[in-house]
């Protein structure tokens, strides 16, 4: 059965399979890891793997880099994915820089960069706020009832 499966697989797609695995490793790091920096690293790996997906779809077997040169007989690989990924890399570093700046601020203000601790701190503030509001409004109600 396994040999059936293997012979049915199109091995011309091996690059995509590995790239998908790499992408998923990155995605998993983004979702599962509680450390803010680790999440950013995961995001980087996720994005870099997507870049590979694009670049490998433009590759032509036996082709060469799309830079014109006298006397070249080989075909050129597709330049368009390269252009797109150049843009995407820039977007990636821009996002990383901004995310790291946010992490620096979070560390300065909260004193931690672990997600669960941040969540705890936020939930605590929220509960206090709700309690305060309920108290004040409730006191109002009582006074209103006494009248």
């Amino acid at each position, binding site marked *: 059965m396994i040999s059936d499966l293997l012979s049915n697989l199109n091995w011309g797609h091996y690059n995509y399979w590995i790239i998908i695995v790499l992408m998923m490793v990155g995605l998993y790091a983004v979702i599962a890891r509680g450390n803010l920096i680790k999440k950013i690293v995961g995001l980087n790996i996720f994005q870099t793997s*997507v870049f590979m997906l694009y670049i490998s779809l433009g590759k032509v077997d036996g082709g060469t880099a799309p830079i014109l040169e006298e006397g070249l007989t080989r075909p050129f690989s597709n330049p368009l*994915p390269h252009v*797109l990924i150049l843009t995407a890399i820039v*977007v990636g570093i821009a*996002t990383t820089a901004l995310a790291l700046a*946010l992490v620096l601020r979070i560390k300065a*203000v909260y004193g931690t960069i672990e997600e669960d601790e941040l969540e705890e701190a*936020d939930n605590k503030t929220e509960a206090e706020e709700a309690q*305060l*509001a309920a108290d004040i409004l409730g006191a109002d109600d009582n006074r209103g009832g006494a009248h």
Partner: protein
Amino acid sequence: MASPEIILAAAEAGHIVTAAAGTHVGTHGATHHEAPGLLDIIRNNLPALQVLVPLTLAPLITLLNNRNLSWLLAMVGTSVSLLIAVVLTTQVLDGSVISYALGNWAPPLGIELRVDAANALVLLIVAAIGTCAAIYARPSVDKELGMTEQPLFYTAFLLCFSGLLGVTITGDAFNLFVFLEISSLSTYALVAMGAKQDRRALNAAYNYLILGTVGATFYVIGLGLAYMMTGTLNMADLAQRLPDLMGSGTLWVAFGFITIGLATKLAMFPLHFWLPNAYTYAPSVVTGFLAATATKVAVYALIRFIFTVFGADFAVEAQLFGKVLLPLGLIGIIAGSLVAIWQVNAKRILAFSSVAQIGYMLVGLGLMSLTGLTATMLHMFNHALMKGALFFALGAVMWKLGGVTLDKMRGAGKLMPWTMAAFVGGGLSLVGVPTTVGFISKWYLLNAAFEREWYWLIAILLITSLMAAVYMWRVFEVAYLRPAPEGVQKGEAPLLLLIPTWALVLANFWFGLNATTTVNLAETAARGLLGLTGGAN
């Protein structure tokens, strides 16, 4: 489905390049040797100028680095954009399509800007709310941010604004991603600016950034797969090539990833986690602007992909409408409204109500009919008006009282009658009281449900409207029926806060009473999206 026929919008849109792909036409070399008049230039390049004006002013603000000038330039940028959006809208109101080839490269080769009724409507929303937000920003930013940061703030605001415009106007799928990222990155920074008031803004911005980036990356993956199968990135060209590939597994996956990516950006129900916190803790002006525009633009992008690029047939085949958009939209409406009822922070109430309102738009799509799509387009416009008005009013309350938790808002109706009157106006519209825009969009939604004879849906829509009345009432009750805390002086927010707020409130009633213009526009847009105009089929 064939792409809608390109109709040259009169002689003005002289730059529609009709040359065959691959040949570069220097049309202008011979005829225009003398510099053409300024007016001609403006008239010929409206689609480009729509994005370009705010985009140019943004770096200029940083360069000048002056607080007063930056506000002025932001005002100029947004209002000129509004003017251009109005002109563009009048040009496409008859169902025509304006195509603008950047760099004079014929579309699949170069990048194309494309204006039809659907994105003219969204351009109008973004530009109008942006103008209001720019006026509003002056006192609000003075209060909530440091003085030295203001030029940077206005730069980021204009970047966000032009990013949203760019996403809306572009006809190229990858270009959409680039502008999406400009708007998203500036949004993350803007949301984080709320940290001066409440540190939770930082955490909210971070979570938004992570989720938003994952969403954008999903979009890029989907687009990559679509490109792999077709070899093109131009939306119109994609639309032409995709029908031949129906049934290809890769394409299903591409469609799925693009949908999920955009659904993250538009805060569709299970992917909405970033929204409530981001809207609650962002500075007031940012909340107002984003709540009214950012999600609408993402909804528009989704609509564009569903109807124009992949085609309604494809989406029906994928069971996107019945099995995804409709149920998730409904859950979003119910869950959003339910959670909103229990909040103690008025901004948070409105944020969860936004999740619910996005649900209405998705339900409109899920109804799979011309009326349903019209209702969605209408609701995009109307929801922008009401959420803009409501959040701006809350920002004015915040300006005066320092917070918008319910306990702080006690007696606000007596303390600042004009502001709270505006809030009530917006609230009525949100609930869907007749004579407001909220009623109009609900009416069309009900009609669409009625056409399908889905009476259960009508019941749900009515019940959720009641829920909206409940959560709005909680704010009204606190503001009007309770005494103000002692020691707070009566007094209004500054005029620059009230003017844009009231402008939006009045627009709520104006378009509620004279709905023909908006309904026309929405219906033209819906017809265009479904390919019913121009006899192109």
